[in-house]
């Protein structure tokens, strides 16, 4: 069953056309990995899906909500979608616990004690229970990114978007963040992630999409896409990535 549907989306910034007729369908509980060179539109696609960027043309549906329709309550749509950014973007003036409970309290109207209990439990699941009262700048990059994931999860989203969440991390800290995503997959979370971690893509993806020129050029299960890519562009991209 298609849960997230992107059809014919165009998005440009000034003269620069980033998405040029992007189509993507994601099923419930599916893990879709987006790969492609910088500027191929991975981040922009993710930002369009949760309405951080308005599309120029095309349609995006999440469940029964059309995100791109005029007059749609974007805040309502965003509650269904969690997004985690490359740069963590934790709120530096709040403790970890306040970072996680802010949206449940202010958006969902949860009481403080209820929200904090839920947040501590969620933090505990990802090994962060002793960080609850720290400020983000006391945490390592990997811990900050895990908090950012917990913060998104606290809103009980139906789909999680990961925008190169390990790219800003020390190589030693990448693993702990990927572990979290692995665990989410096991729980059946619907995930769309942009990444340069090809090994990880191969491991967790149900489907890998190669983006080029603002479109999905080629998509297939990881074994197939990495094993026998059809397009010459895909082949040369994979060869270039393999060399790094």
């Amino acid at each position, binding site marked *: 069953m298609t849960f997230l549907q992107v059809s014919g989306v165009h998005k440009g910034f000034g003269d620069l056309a980033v998405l040029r007729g992007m189509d993507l369908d994601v099923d419930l509980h599916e893990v879709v990995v987006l790969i492609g060179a910088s500027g191929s539109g991975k981040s922009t696609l993710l930002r369009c899906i*949760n309405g951080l960027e308005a599309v120029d043309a095309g349609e995006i549906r999440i469940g029964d909500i059309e995100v791109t329709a005029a007059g749609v309550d974007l*805040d309502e749509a*965003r509650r269904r*979608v969690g997004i985690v950014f490359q740069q963590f973007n*934790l709120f530096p003036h709040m403790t970890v616990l306040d970072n996680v409970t802010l949206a449940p309290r*202010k958006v969902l109207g949860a009481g403080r004690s209820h929200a904090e209990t839920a947040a501590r439990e969620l933090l505990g699941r990802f090994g962060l229970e002793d960080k609850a009262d720290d400020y983000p700048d006391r945490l390592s990059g990997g811990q900050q990114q895990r908090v950012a994931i917990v913060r998104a999860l606290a*809103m009980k989203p139906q789909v999680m978007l990961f925008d190169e969440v390990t790219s800003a991390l020390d190589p030693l800290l990448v693993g702990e963040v990927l572990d979290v995503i692995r665990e989410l997959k096991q729980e059946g979370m619907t995930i769309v992630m942009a990444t340069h971690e090809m090994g990880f893509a191969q491991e967790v993806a149900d489907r890998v999409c190669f983006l080029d020129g603002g479109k999905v050029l080629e998509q297939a299960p990881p074994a197939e896409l990495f094993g026998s890519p059809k397009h010459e562009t895909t082949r040369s991209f994979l060869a270039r990535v393999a060399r790094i």
Partner: protein
Amino acid sequence: MTTPAEAPLEAPSIPYVDPVRRSRSRARARRDGLIASISTVVVFAVLGYLITSTPGWPKVQETFFNLDEAIAAWPTLIKAFVLNIKIFLVAEFFILILSLLIALGRGLRAPVALPVRIMCTVYVDFFRGVPTILVILLLGFGVPALQLKGVTNSPVVWGTVALILSYTAYVAEVYRAGIESIHPSQRAAARSLGLSSIQTTRYVVLPQAVRRVIPPLLNDFIALQKETALVSLLGPIEVLRAAQISASANFNYTAYVVAALLFVAITLPLTRLTDWLQRRDTRRRMAGVM
């Protein structure tokens, strides 16, 4: 030179400092302190000598630094200075609130809010451009001249209103700079969690922005505290006016010097606080880099 191998192994958290180097650096600190003391004493002694040896000094001392005059003027001046303090406390309260509203108004991006944005922009442009002293004169003499019923003619009130109008424009710009210094990714993160635009401003942007602008904001308040003296133009007996009266009654300017010292005394704590906050910010940023 001893080697670091002699460092006590049981206390690795204390950085090991070579004892020879430590005594050297202590000697250097002592020498630096001595040089600083000598240089300070010499410079101020020379300055003091140069001033007191000028031919006009005895006369200046008599008319500007007369202790008897200072003691005589003190009670009147300190009583008048209470009015200055009242003026700036009231003004600062309103400025903090109004300028924040203006800054937020200028930041509105919704098309329907364009008139608000225009009004806020015109307000800031106007009052930043007009000298405060002119605003005080225009309001202080202009409003009473209108002879409006039920509207006060009190020069203190209109002088304070003029200060509020003028400084709100400056402080609004300080706030705005702070708001714009918060990286857009913070707003994106908040919006992506489902927070509305107003909630994002209230809980994510403003708390960070206000923290950043406290030092420049205090700077504007230091300036404001001095400028309460301008209200004397409208006639109320605040400290400058009181000093003027005392000076013309006794042909002695010591009261001016006392008034000046009162202003310094009241701004000094704020000045030091601002310096301290700025140093703390710099230190934090340095720590962030490392």
